[in-house]
């Protein structure tokens, strides 16, 4: 059968701009990375750590605070701060379940999806890989309350099945990844939509900032636990920010782009 010309023309549209943009930014984010390395000559610790990156086999696996890294009181504090959000999330799920019983299965499968997503690798020019957190995607799709519950479970599974994160640091990780991340992502997404920004921008900024602020929170948590002798909290915060959040910018951009790509593909279904 011969295809009519008009039909052929409208067919392969997605192989266009968007992917070219992804490619372009992925490339520039690599340059960004290089840029950080270069300018870090000013910041001694960063160059040292950058060198360390090269020697460690598994670089930058989604930066959860590892088991045992936080003192007991901070473990308890963050757990106490996260708990209300989990309870709130459970309550809100329970409420919706009465109307839509199928939601339980959907959330179950979605949680598994989030876990599998975090185990995938985003290809990158340097050959090293980063892992999508899926926080932004989940928050936009399911709302931040449900996402805090799913995020909490996924973090437990990551600790137990993948040895990323930990039990004592669960509270802190839940707060940064399952509370701050989703709420920021969702808030930014709604805000941009409300300001009648385009959907792709809302999704991108939501996922990008959700990802980035997760790591800002992580830095803050570490700084609180380990204030510097000189300069105290702020000096320490700057230090951890430099290590854990700035290095995350290119990865957060990747995550934002991937989320836009996925979101657009989902809406074509």
């Amino acid at each position: 059968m011969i295809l009519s010309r008009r039909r052929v023309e409208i067919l392969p549209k997605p192989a266009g701009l968007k992917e070219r943009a992804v490619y372009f930014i992925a490339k520039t984010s690599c340059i960004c990375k290089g840029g950080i390395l270069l300018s870090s000559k000013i910041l001694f610790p960063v160059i040292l750590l950058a060198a360390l990156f090269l020697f460690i086999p598994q670089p930058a696996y989604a930066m959860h605070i590892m088991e045992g890294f936080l003192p007991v009181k901070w473990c308890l504090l963050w757990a106490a701060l996260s708990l209300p959000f989990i309870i709130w999330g459970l309550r809100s799920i329970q409420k919706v379940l009465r109307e839509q019983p199928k939601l339980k299965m959907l959330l179950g499968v979605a949680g598994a999806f989030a876990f599998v997503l975090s185990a995938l690798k985003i290809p990158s020019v340097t050959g090293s890989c980063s892992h999508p957190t899926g926080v932004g995607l989940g928050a936009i799709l399911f709302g931040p309350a449900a996402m805090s519950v799913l995020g909490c479970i996924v973090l437990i599974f990551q600790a137990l099945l993948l040895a990323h994160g930990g039990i004592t640091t669960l509270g802190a990780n839940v707060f940064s990844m399952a509370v701050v991340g989703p709420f920021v992502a969702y808030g930014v997404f709604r805000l941009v939509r409300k300001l009648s920004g385009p959907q792709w921008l809302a999704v991108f900024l939501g996922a990008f900032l959700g990802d980035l602020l997760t790591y800002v929170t992580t830095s803050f948590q570490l700084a609180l636990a380990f204030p510097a002798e000189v300069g105290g909290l702020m000096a320490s915060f700057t230090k951890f920010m430099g290590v854990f959040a700035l290095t995350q910018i290119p990865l957060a951009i990747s995550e934002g782009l991937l989320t836009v790509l996925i979101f657009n593909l989902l809406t074509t279904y």
Partner: protein
Amino acid sequence: MSTILETRNLSFQYPDDTAALKDVSVKIESGKKVAFLGPNGAGKSTLFLHLNGILKPSQGRILFKGREIKYNRSSLMELRRNIGIVFQDADSQLFSANVFQEVSFGPLNLGLPEQEVRARVTKALADTDISHLVQKPTHFLSYGQKKRVSIAGILAMEPSVIILDEPTSSLDPYHGKQLMDLIDELSRRGTTVILSTHDIEMAYAWAESIYVMLDGMILKEGVPEELFQDEPLLKKAGLCKPLILEIYQEFKKWGYFKEEIKPPRNKKQLSQIIEALAPTIKD
């Protein structure tokens, strides 16, 4: 006939040390129709993944047109362009939003110019008889249609060998037959076709050469008529005998044949035998 694809003493262990393939040597001749039989878990799919360079053997070598496969980027590109795999579960194989995108995926990855990609997609869709589905979303398709789309996606890459992992499973008899006709057409045009199947009757009627696998090893290779008369082999591999061959053997056993008759390969040949024997029935 020349050998197009060959494995020599291929072994493969999964990272947890389960051996999936043990010392597998096969020789696939160009243009042939080859079937792999054996129970689930015998290693058929694992072997197929090696033939396309997806898995790298722990030991042994794979040769394509006599040249050993190196596991570098260009060598793998060359291999995968020439050897297409159609996986068993069409549902998990299709990942694009619509049929055109799905079929264009492979040719685009070959780095072909857009004009050429369009032409190939159009041809592949016509060959698999699904031109009318071109802009359908993939998830609205029936299972049989999905299967065709996944085959079109491979055909568009114009491989010289096409491998199909249980092509007719989950298809109803009508669509299964249609698919086998398509596969036969590919074979007539010179493509080497390798498939795995649980359908004994189909394998017996279709294949020119059959490999039987069990526990990661090749138990035997041979032409269907001989291979299926090897009772201990069939028993060991948990295969049953094709009904047509069985009836032929029954005839032979009870003295229907006065002279040597070649085993029939399909229904038609069996019917001819029954017809030919009719005058020997006492009135």
